[in-house]
């Protein structure tokens, strides 16, 4: 899934002065009233009853799971869908609508056994045919769904490429229902993380009868949304700033759902969101921007996930100097990542000195894949003196005494590029760096056309496996815009995707990451998750590995003690 870029920068649209002024006013006001203690007793907003009130900065582009391609919509959809597998609060996969799964020895066939008690929100039973219909719906070229990548790029379902090219009927897709409670999935090649794929939003079941009976597009009103998860959509209209859900009595684990409903409000203004949280109107608020400085030390502040990374992508075939290892080493070693993460990006961001962020994926023995924080200090640490040495050596090898290139950046992240460019120009003599700020569309177009020197970009992994990041740097990956190529890296990624023995696969992935980082196939900068303020009368609130909210089925909300404090 794609985390919408510019999400963090959305908050920057107001003038910097106004923002600072507002933050100052708000800080002073909250301090005067003892901000932390003033929650409770909210009489306004949607904070009545025991609904869980959540504030986020975005709304849902779609409520149709088979058209969902970004985390923002998934946040809203996940409240009302069930999936074969889902993540628990420890980010472990647990069966949801599936009861069990059998995996063939070659790792290419998955047979899911469904729970007989599964029901849609309208009371109709959920059967294997509903998964078959849903998956075909997402892949069918006639549907125009962009979510087909889940069944193609992420897991290579049998025949998916031919179907997408229009050379084969969608009925030939590698998913079938031998009987109502058995779902058989055939893959073209093994996919070691396939159970994470079936936990993604577009894999949710869908009833053909429901869709065909609709006289309006799916997901344009509460009546046109079919739930298969813990909650039913009670109030919604497209791009609504507020979506309200009520408990789904037909959900297979309805007895686990403790709250009567959820209200998600899109709150684009960070100060107002903070104030709404402090007033008790919101029980959980996802925070960005400068208000985070007001929350330092708050015990209710929780940082979740680390599935987004931000980095510079060199265009190897356009800038000759980027083929020189010393030049790239100099650029890598003269970025003060700690300072950028701490002072510029602030809370919720951490310096990234490798590709796989810490806490993102696990080794087969359960330890963190990125458990050694200094593993790549030699390549990506902050060492200005060493950088200068490499720089001089690199220029000499190139036979030039100066270098000039341009950083392509989305305008919302221009400040990051400016800071890095300033640092480079200060530390590396005779270097001139220009900044080219563009909007997201322009950036993607320019990147697709390979029309850039160095590009500031980001990536959010779809599944908590190192391959989710590594795969974008293979020679044939369409989003390898910088055209990084290393045959050994390609071989390792290819073989790791076919390797069924977890230890061997893990070693390959570690080796691939080492090659990429030491080759300076990219310049890592920082990683981010999501920073939430969650009221202390709420328990069971957890997010998925990306830091976005899960389905809230384990959430409990106790009534607050009356009065202040």
């Amino acid at each position: 899934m794609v985390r919408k870029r510019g999400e963090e920068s959305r908050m920057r649209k107001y003038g910097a002065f106004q923002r600072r002024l507002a933050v100052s006013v708000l800080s002073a006001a909250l301090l005067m009233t003892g901000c932390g203690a003033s929650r409770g007793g909210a009489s306004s907003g949607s904070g009545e009853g025991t609904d869980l009130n959540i504030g986020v900065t975005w709304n849902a582009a779609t409520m149709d799971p088979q058209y969902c391609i970004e985390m923002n919509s998934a946040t809203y959809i996940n409240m009302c869908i069930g999936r074969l597998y889902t993540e628990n609060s420890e980010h472990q996969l647990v069966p949801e609508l599936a009861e069990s799964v059998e995996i063939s020895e070659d790792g290419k066939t998955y047979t899911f056994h469904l729970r007989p008690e599964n029901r849609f929100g309208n009371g109709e039973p959920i059967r294997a045919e509903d998964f078959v219909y849903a998956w075909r719906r997402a892949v069918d070229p006639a549907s125009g769904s962009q979510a087909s990548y889940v069944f193609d790029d992420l897991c290579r379902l049998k025949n998916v490429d031919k179907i997408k090219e229009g050379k084969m009927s969608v009925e030939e897709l590698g998913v079938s229902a031998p009987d109502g409670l058995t779902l058989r999935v055939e893959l073209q090649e093994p996919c070691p993380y396939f159970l994470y794929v079936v936990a993604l939003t577009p894999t949710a079941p869908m009833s053909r009868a429901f869709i065909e009976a609709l006289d309006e597009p799916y997901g344009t009103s509460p009546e046109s949304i079919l739930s298969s998860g813990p909650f039913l959509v009670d109030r919604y209209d497209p791009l609504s700033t507020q979506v309200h859900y009520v408990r789904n009595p037909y959900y297979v684990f309805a007895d686990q759902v403790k709250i009567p409903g959820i209200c998600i409000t899109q709150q684009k203004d960070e100060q107002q969101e903070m104030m709404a949280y402090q007033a008790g109107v919101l029980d959980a608020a996802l925070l960005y921007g400068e208000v985070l400085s007001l929350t330092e030390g708050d015990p209710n502040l929780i940082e979740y996930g680390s599935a987004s990374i931000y980095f510079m992508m060199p265009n190897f075939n356009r800038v000759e100097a980027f083929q020189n290892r010393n030049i790239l080493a100099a650029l890598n070693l003269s970025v003060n990542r700690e300072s950028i993460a701490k002072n510029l990006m602030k809370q919720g961001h951490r310096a990234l000195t490798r590709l796989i962020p810490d806490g993102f994926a696990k080794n087969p023995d359960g330890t963190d894949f990125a458990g050694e924080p200094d593993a790549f200090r030699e390549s990506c640490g902050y060492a200005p003196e060493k950088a200068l040495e490499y720089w001089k050596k690199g220029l000499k090898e190139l036979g030039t005494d100066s270098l000039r290139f341009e950083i392509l950046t989305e305008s919302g992240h221009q400040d990051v590029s400016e800071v890095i460019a300033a640092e480079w120009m200060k530390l590396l003599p005779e270097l001139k760096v220009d900044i080219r700020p563009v909007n997201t569309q322009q950036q993607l177009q320019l990147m697709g056309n390979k029309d850039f020197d160095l590009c500031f970009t980001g990536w959010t992994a779809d599944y908590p496996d190192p391959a989710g990041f590594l795969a974008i740097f293979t020679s044939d990956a369409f989003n390898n815009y910088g055209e990084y190529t290393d045959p050994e890296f390609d071989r390792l990624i290819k073989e790791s995707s076919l390797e069924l023995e977890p230890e061997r696969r893990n070693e390959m992935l570690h080796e691939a990451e080492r090659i990429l980082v030491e080759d300076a196939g990219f310049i890592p900068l920082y990683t981010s998750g999501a920073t939430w303020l969650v009221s202390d009368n709420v328990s069971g609130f957890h997010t998925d590995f990306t830091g976005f909210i899960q389905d809230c089925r384990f959430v409990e909300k106790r009534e607050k003690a009356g009065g202040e404090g």
Partner: protein
Amino acid sequence: MRKYIAKRLLVSVATLLVILLILFLLLNLMPGSPFNSPKLSVEQKAALLREYGLDRPVLVRYFLYLKNMLRGDFGVSYSLSPNTPITTLLKHRLPVSLMMGFCSMVVGSIAGLALGFFAAFRKGKAADILCTVVSVLGVSIPSYLFAIALSYGLGFRAKLLPLIYDFRHPVLSGIMPVLSCSVIVMAVVAQFTRDEAAAVLESDYVEFARSQGIGGKDLFFGYVFRNSMMSVLTVITMLLVGLLSGSMVTEDIFSVPGIGSLLNDAISQNDYNVVIALSFIYAVIYLLARLMLDVLYGILDPRVRITDTDE
């Protein structure tokens, strides 16, 4: 007057067609496409452009759009809310912004007129200076800060009003956004009213009326109010156009489900149909407001009616 209105309506329709054409041409020049997900391959992007007919020449798309528009079909959203008909998208949001804008205009205008006339009758005195200070503050304080201040006072501290939009209490939820938007209206209207009314009060015909012993209500409604309103109405109409098209900042702060930030989002995501539909609506609002202004001129100023009859 009827002939004049009919002529203006015809010109308005022609203007709208030209505006639409310019929009199509400009959007065609915009870089990128609505299908910007980095997880889409080049082939998938090309297929989507084909699917939505965006690979056709701009003029073909223009005439197709016009044909569909006459049937009430404004197309579907490409990226903001994929495949959602624009009419569905605007059905819930447009009335909210229109209602909020209208209420802000009414509240701001009444407050502004009262303040302006009050100051004009006390020109040079403390009340006049106070009015000027209030107007300057109203114009110079960004509505963003005013909204935050209101939220803090009435929402956070007094807990009188919802801090953010609550679908269960839409009217209560609308009070703070309306107040935030009406401040600028009040400030501008007060200043214009004060200047106009002060000039009218110094005019020969008011002096003459006073010398005839006319005063109080008769002087105000018969001479001052009517003659001051001509230019004030122009200002109110222009402010109304801005208010009806939704306030991005205010709607964002209070999570109001209006159209304020929709155009901005649509432009940044290249959602052409949403951009065109919203721009078209704004143009219609503007043209209708101008028409309304002309009719009001006729009602307020007999000279306009006489000129029209002469034609």
